[in-house]
């Protein structure tokens, strides 16, 4: 039985990818990625561009756990939404520049992740998915009840975008995108560093053979908990940017449908590839935007259909398939 984590790529492919696609290939990819990130608001309505960037980081954060640890979290909305609320509250009550609020939100997400992670990493596989799902939903109910703090059903209104008094950023979403993009890129870079560090290699070892990793003296649960908290922090950065970009936070950010949506993006792009999450996020956000603007209600029919199709027929995902073809292009088949 192959682990779900290696769906996007075979283990050897992943090791090849980690050990280094050739440096020039990596540089080309990076350059293209940066160009797309910088050019996005010119081609897409800027708030939608910001959504894509935020969801992309969210999907990458989830892939850190799913692709490099084999842990499918179905409760990541807790960290995205939790940080969104925390960011919003910090921005409203302290009037700090928005990056400060976002980092505060991310910190809050990491604090949340400690107890949830501690309880969840006792288990792996299906159990882990179910327990994370239940705890995230618990947070949803709490936020719904604590309406004095969160606005309950009405959401948290009026999250300011203060940025050192620079008017263009505070009012124009085109310039706001460029002010917030460094936060997203920083998160992406952090994910990349984690994967390509000795720590990341241990994670892959745990994913591929936990008993062996344990026998080598690695404290498996501790590693899992650390990566869980890191992943929550990156999800928190994404959720914070999302909250400031929209200027309000609504309850659905904490709902399990949000957790499912980011899983869909990661799976669609390719599990265990990092780039896949970015592509999956871009496609799903654009699709949702297109369907919403064309007045089609019932987006779940489309996303659900995509989900079922990808899982049945296309398990490598988009990037996983592309990389598979690229890496196996000169091998005799």
């Amino acid at each position: 039985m192959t682990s779900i984590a290696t769906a996007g790529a075979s283990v050897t492919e992943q090791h090849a990818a980690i050990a280094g696609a050739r440096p020039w290939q990596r540089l080309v990819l990076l350059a293209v990625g940066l160009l797309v990130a910088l050019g996005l608001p010119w081609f897409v309505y800027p708030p939608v561009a910001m959504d894509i960037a935020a969801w992309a980081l969210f999907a990458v954060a989830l892939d850190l756990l799913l692709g490099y640890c084999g842990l499918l979290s179905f409760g990541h909305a807790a960290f995205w939404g939790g940080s969104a609320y925390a960011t919003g509250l910090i921005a409203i009550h302290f009037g700090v520049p928005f990056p400060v609020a976002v980092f505060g939100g991310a910190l809050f997400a990491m604090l949340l992740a400690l107890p949830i992670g501690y309880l969840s990493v006792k288990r792996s596989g299906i159990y882990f998915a179910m327990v994370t799902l239940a705890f995230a939903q618990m947070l949803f109910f709490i936020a719904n009840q604590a309406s004095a703090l969160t606005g309950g059903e009405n959401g948290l209104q009026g999250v300011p975008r203060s940025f050192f008094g620079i008017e263009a950023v505070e009012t124009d979403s085109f310039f706001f995108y460029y002010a917030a993009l460094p936060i997203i890129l920083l998160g992406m870079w952090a994910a990349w560093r984690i994967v390509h560090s000795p720590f990341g290699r241990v994670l892959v070892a745990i994913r591929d053979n936990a008993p062996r990793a344990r026998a080598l003296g690695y404290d498996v649960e501790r590693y899992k908990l650390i990566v869980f908290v890191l992943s929550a922090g990156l999800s928190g950065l994404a959720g914070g940017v999302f909250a400031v970009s929209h200027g309000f936070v609504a309850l659905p950010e904490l709902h399990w449908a949000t957790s499912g949506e980011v899983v869909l993006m990661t799976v669609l792009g390719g599990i265990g590839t990092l780039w896949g999450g970015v592509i999956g996020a871009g496609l799903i956000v654009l699709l949702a935007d297109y369907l919403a603007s064309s007045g089609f209600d019932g987006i779940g029919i489309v996303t659900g259909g995509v989900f079922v199709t990808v899982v049945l027929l296309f398990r490598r995902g988009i990037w996983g398939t592309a990389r598979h073809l690229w890496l196996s292009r000169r091998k005799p088949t």
Partner: protein
Amino acid sequence: MNAVLQYTVQGLAAGSFYALAALGLAVIFGVLGVVNFAHGAFYMLGAVAAAVLLDTVGMSLWLALIVVPLLMLVFGMLVERLLVQWLLPLDPLYNLLLTFGLTLLLVDLVKRRYGVSGLPYERPDALSGRIQVAGVGLPVYQLFVIGVALLVCLGVWLLMTRTRVGMIVRAATERPELAGALGINVGRWVTPVFGFGVALAGLAGVLAAPFRAITAEMGSDFIIILFAVVVIGGLGSIVGAVVGGFLVGLVEAFGQAYAPTFAQVLIFVLMAVVVLARPAGLFGREEAAA
């Protein structure tokens, strides 16, 4: 004392839906190793089917209690043959993802067809009103739901313990490898068992129809609580599913009565305590919960 009796009945009635559906979830998990995320959607379909049948052909609740689960049985077997079976040899997480996608699809299909406002459902006259028990007026319908759930659970239990089919399914549920080694063809039971599990979710839905708002979203909180139920009871355990279901129903009812703010959170606190104290669940075995 009166209040306690009332809340107990209310909790057991709510627990009846959880117990029936969780029983289906447990049997499916046992034999197929699949955690069926769509179980909440199947519960919703059961309720919607009952409402639509009442509206179009005037089918009474009594008949719907038989017909709808049979329809759901067929539907479940179709889902297994068309979708679920292809992923059975792979990591079980794939079927969780598949059934999650199926949930989005089914919920939005129902939403488009029947709108977001609830469908009406009239309960039969025989089941409305209250009955005096020990000087307390208890809703007849709640007692009826508990009665049906207990009967069905008892029936399933007898089926499981007193018949050859039950023995085989139980063996496949509790120890699939061992059952296979003893020459039981576990694969043959996969499709009917999946259908049977879906039928139980559908039955819970029919019972809930006169009792809850019938909307496309009615399964979306239900499935999360159902997951908490099977984590509390133990994922591979049939007894655990039933006991967990009634336990969670009681926690919900008493929570709503005495601490309405924390009612929904209490269930998850209970789950956290169980995960800490007995990671495999109250009735689960370690190796089943790996």
